[in-house]
């Protein structure tokens, strides 16, 4: 008998029953909820006269709509306010724990879950949000679901699903200084494409992955969905355990010991077989920058905007032409020559404390370039913000000319007041460069926090790995 992959183990441990065609009921351990994708689910429950199966498994937080400044005035947009109040009411009605807007623990749902230890190894985690893949960094089976499924999980504690195939992405070797988890995951997406992971559960492995901190691992797993995979995951090791120990929701004492013994098994067996394997050499990875309107439209800082005329596939060529026209870029233009209007450091991909430290290190003692109309830092949670302020990172950013905001999704999807105006160009640490994502007509380039910080200072993209060489002399 061949061994099991990590995904096989997580799946098998959660099977409640299987239909003849393979459709399976899997049990859900943790259900994270935010204000945008849950109101219709709670309404559905109410209409059917149902109650949540296990309210204690649910943790709720408003994040998408929350304003990142002027909080003392509350939420002024009435439509946003209604959505947040609806979440408050639904949670109160069903006895669901919610970190409300004024709670210091409030933040982006994918930041606060791990931060609280509410995401644990071996769990199945769902949320009505595609970036739930983030939590796979803890060897959890974590997947984004739609609103009907949110209702289904609330009502039954289960999800109906067919098993995915197994893919392993190995990244070995040592990346150069200045190369971050974001560059690794953008390199992966550049390699396999935005549909490359469709139908697969991805496991990330290899020495470069093992060397990442938990925060870096979350950045990689976060963008699994941008590679088409509903979930991405990594084995448990000492880094995982050290991160979780003593977190508020993590088990304590004897229960911790018992849990750790079980968690140590959460890795693929040596003889496990994957349906697909992909390998990358970390030593070759350069800082990445997207040039188009899909995360797979990505190149390195040394690169140039590609020429659609060179593309033989007609559908791809059409996509590239549309992307270049939307982005206002010419084929062959140097990436370093792209001037920016706005800088956004935030989102569930890159708004954790290490991200803010990396960005602060670059801007320390420097000023945001004149051509930058707005540079903003939006911490991923109230606790990240607090920690950053303890380390005086806020002062570094403010002195350089950045705005220091309150936590939330902010300009990652521009549902609140933070957005790009038509034609504005932004270096963003978020995860999606889709048309209109950060505001109608806005142009997004995805990069790491260090690259965004360096671009803020220079006013255009620069190679952060070269910067660091000069500053360390």
């Amino acid at each position, binding site marked *: 008998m061949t061994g099991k992959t990590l995904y096989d183990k997580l799946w098998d441990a959660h099977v409640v029953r299987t239909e003849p*065609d393979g459709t399976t*009921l899997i049990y859900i351990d943790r259900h994270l909820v935010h204000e945008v994708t849950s109101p219709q689910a709670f309404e559905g429950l109410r209409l059917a006269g149902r109650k949540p199966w296990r309210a204690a498994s649910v943790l709720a937080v408003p994040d998408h709509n929350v304003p990142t400044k002027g909080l003392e005035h509350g939420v002024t947009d009435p439509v946003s306010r209604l959505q947040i109040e609806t979440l408050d009411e639904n949670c109160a009605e069903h006895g669901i724990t919610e970190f409300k807007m004024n709670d210091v623990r409030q933040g982006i749902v994918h930041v606060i879950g791990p931060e609280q230890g509410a995401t644990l190894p071996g769990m199945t985690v769902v949320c009505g949000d595609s970036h739930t893949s983030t939590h796979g960094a803890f060897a959890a089976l974590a997947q984004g679901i739609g*609103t009907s499924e949110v209702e289904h999980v609330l009502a*039954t504690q289960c999800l109906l699903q067919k098993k995915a195939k197994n893919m392993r992405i190995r990244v070995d070797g040592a990346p150069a200084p200045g190369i971050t988890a974001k560059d690794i995951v953008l390199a992966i997406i550049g390699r396999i494409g935005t549909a490359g992971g469709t139908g697969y559960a991805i496991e990330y492995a290899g020495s470069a992955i093992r060397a990442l901190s938990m925060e870096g691992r979350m950045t990689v797993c976060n963008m699994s*969905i941008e590679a088409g995979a509903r979930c991405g995951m990594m084995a448990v090791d000492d880094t995982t355990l050290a991160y979780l120990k003593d977190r508020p929701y993590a088990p304590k004492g004897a229960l911790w010991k018992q849990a750790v013994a079980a968690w140590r098994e959460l890795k693929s067996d040596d003889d496990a077989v994957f349906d697909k394997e992909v390998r990358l050499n970390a030593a070759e990875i350069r800082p990445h920058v997207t040039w188009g309107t899909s995360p797979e439209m990505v190149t390195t800082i040394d690169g140039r905007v590609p020429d659609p005329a060179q593309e033989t596939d007609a559908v791809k060529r059409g996509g590239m032409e549309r992307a270049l026209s939307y982005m206002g870029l010419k084929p062959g233009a140097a990436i370093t020559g792209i001037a920016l209007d706005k800088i956004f450091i935030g989102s569930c991909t890159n708004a954790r404390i290490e991200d803010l430290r990396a960005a602060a290190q670059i801007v320390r003692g420097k000023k945001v370039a004149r051509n930058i109309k707005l540079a903003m830092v939006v911490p991923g949670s109230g606790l990240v913000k607090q920690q950053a302020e303890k380390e005086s990172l806020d002062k570094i950013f403010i002195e350089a000319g950045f705005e220091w905001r309150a936590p939330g999704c902010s300009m990652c999807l521009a549902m609140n007041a933070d957005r790009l105006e038509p034609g504005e160009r932004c270096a963003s640490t978020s995860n*999606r460069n889709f048309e209109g994502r950060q505001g109608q007509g806005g142009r997004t380039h995805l990069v790491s926090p260090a690259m965004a910080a360096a671009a803020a200072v220079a006013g255009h993209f620069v190679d952060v790995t070269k910067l660091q060489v000069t500053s360390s002399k």
Partner: protein
Amino acid sequence: MEKFTTLKGLVAPLDRANVDTDAIIPKQFLKSIKRTGFGPNLFDEWRYLDHGEPGMDNSLRPLNPDFVLNQPRYRGAGILLARGNFGCGSSREHAPWALQDYGFRALIAPGFADIFYNNCFKNGLLPIVLDGNVVDRLFKEVEAAPGYALIVDLAAQRITTPSGEILPFEVDAFRKHCLLNGLDDIGLTLQHRDDIKAYEARRRMEAPWLFT
């Protein structure tokens, strides 16, 4: 959920790959706490020339004449023909709600993003995966023949083209059953209440830290 059995529908072609759910229904419309009313804002940023916000009277907004759904020949389309990786990105179920509300009942593409694909079935919308070459050919046929309509027969799992050609397609037995009968899967799952309880009891012994 509305039943899906057979459908004869006019086909509208959306000739671009990687159409994401942000494009299908932009975020400003996600602030609604309802499931209906998203149709007028389907593909909002491509469909109208101005910037759309919730609460606007969409009938007064300037239409983008170049956008395919605004062309008179595709008015009343029930089937959307699309390219690969349709529905990628955000998990928002507002995307199938908007497609459905607009009047689409079936989608045909060489591939769909996983979460979107799943969300369609929960809403009586049938996503059909066909081989890329076949889809390519359908694009050409639709383009060449105004009024081009397909017949989708879910029970028989086949599509009939105007020339009488039969195109078979795959669909999971369970999803097909739910769609054909308009079944609510929460109700179905709750019939297995005892299995869920038994699982929980066993799991509580094995992994008590998950139940604190």
